[in-house]
């Protein structure tokens, strides 16, 4: 369990990133939305994983890059919270 971050903070940050950087029409997108329903493809998911590395200092290992963990922001957040940090965070979570 990663003590430096909590599920709600991670969800908020990831949702904001997706809404601002990846989606043209962010209305209706939230942590429970299926990423594929909003057209987020492989390239977008890589952007999202790189944002996790930069922001939370967490690299998601290959074995954790499963369909279940990449289904929604909430699922990805749960995965991140269970992983140890591998690098310093860009900034402290709010």
């Amino acid at each position, binding site marked *: 369990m990663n003590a430096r971050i909590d599920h709600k903070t991670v969800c908020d940050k990831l949702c904001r990133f997706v809404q601002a*950087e*990846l*989606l*043209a*029409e962010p209305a209706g997108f939230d942590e429970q939305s299926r990423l594929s329903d*909003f*057209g*987020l*493809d*492989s*390239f*977008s*998911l*890589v*952007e999202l*994983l*790189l944002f996790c590395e930069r922001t939370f200092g967490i690299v998601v290992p*290959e*074995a954790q*890059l*499963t*369909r279940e963990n*990449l289904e929604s922001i909430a699922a990805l957040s749960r995965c991140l919270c269970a992983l140890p940090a591998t690098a310093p965070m860009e900034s402290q979570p709010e």
Partner: protein
Amino acid sequence: MTARMSGFPHQLQLTGADYFILALDRQMRQGGMPGNVCRLVLDLDGALEAKALRAVVAQSETLNWIASLRMIRWLPFMSPRWRTNGARGGLPVALRAGEAGAGGREEFNRPLGEIRTGKAPGLNLELIGRPDGSTRLVLAWHHALMDVRGAEFLVRHIQDRAAGGAAVGTVAFNPDQTRTGPLDFWRGFPARVRFGRESLAFITQACRPPLASLALAQGPPAAARNQFRILRFSAEETRRMDEQVVRLNASFRRGMFYLAASIRALNAVFRRRGRPPESVLVPVPHDLRKRGMAGPIFSNQVSFLFFRVEAEALGGLGEMTADLGAQMMEQIRRRTPESFATVMELFRPLPLGFYARRIKQPTQGRFATFFFSDIGESLAGMETFLGLPVREVTHLAPAGGPPGLTVIFSRHRGRQSVVLSLVEGCLDEPELELFEQALRRDLLSEAKA
């Protein structure tokens, strides 16, 4: 003086990708091919009235505007631009009777009419009435005018207009391209050069010879044809393909799984030819639009990622998929697509011939082992077009020699398709059969017979 269409710019810059594609067009034509012309084919159940389509086309300002655009260059070393000639009703809609047999696939190999960017509209529509009462709609366009996603937006636009949904409206163009002042090109020039250098160094390294190639040693014949082979997968086969993706833990890099399978299929052909393994280079287009955007239709809003697999790493499907996935991640981390888009913009003022030669230089004229694109879901959610059920959607991308082969993956209504677009003679019939068998085996996880 030409008339202006309200709400549409009189002139626009080309994107860097437009000009890059124009350089490839030059290369294709010099190799005896028809040029960088794409086709989007919709097979519809039932007869579509040409009159109905013509009426929609005539009413659409967007279609009229795109059909009126011509590429011009005022002076050498000045960036070319798109400029409207103000003509209305310029988009041709042709009507033709289709031939019977083989599901009309032989029609794909029919020579294309001339489509260029300078004098006539860079796109046209053709309606082919088939003997079984169905209709084939073919949108053909010069690739410099728009990319594949743009063409799909255009088809959606026609559909929306027909349904009376003017308000639904797709976005026709990128407003950034309307900045055509003399100083616009030079804004932030030093920073853009610095940013572009990063990808140039990487790409020069990735493109180094020797590279595996299908290109004919003596070049294609003077008037080579573009041949197509289309692999259709049933809903059940597509489901099996998805299971294979999950098994290889490739859910978030499905495109890399397709690419790895394509590389392995081509490698099977090289093995049959008795050639020792060589490194493989495949550039893959990357859509720069935000996801969920309804446009822009016009211009190529893409950059590229460059994948290289060394000869000694041409191995198992799972390992290669993982390796390609890691390459994708690294390039996005280094912002290679954005950097390469900047390079393409900076090269716009170069004369086309010089630019085309410059593109070929790093690979010593080979360009790539093949071109590849995963379009993903094609015309997602579109079940009918002008009231008729859409049976199939097919993307026919051109092939150039070199590299001789373009592989396009796409999916419509839960069924996968793969289009192999070839320069005539690069693969013979038994080799095509071998490629298809090897590809199917990997995609569907079938044991070797």
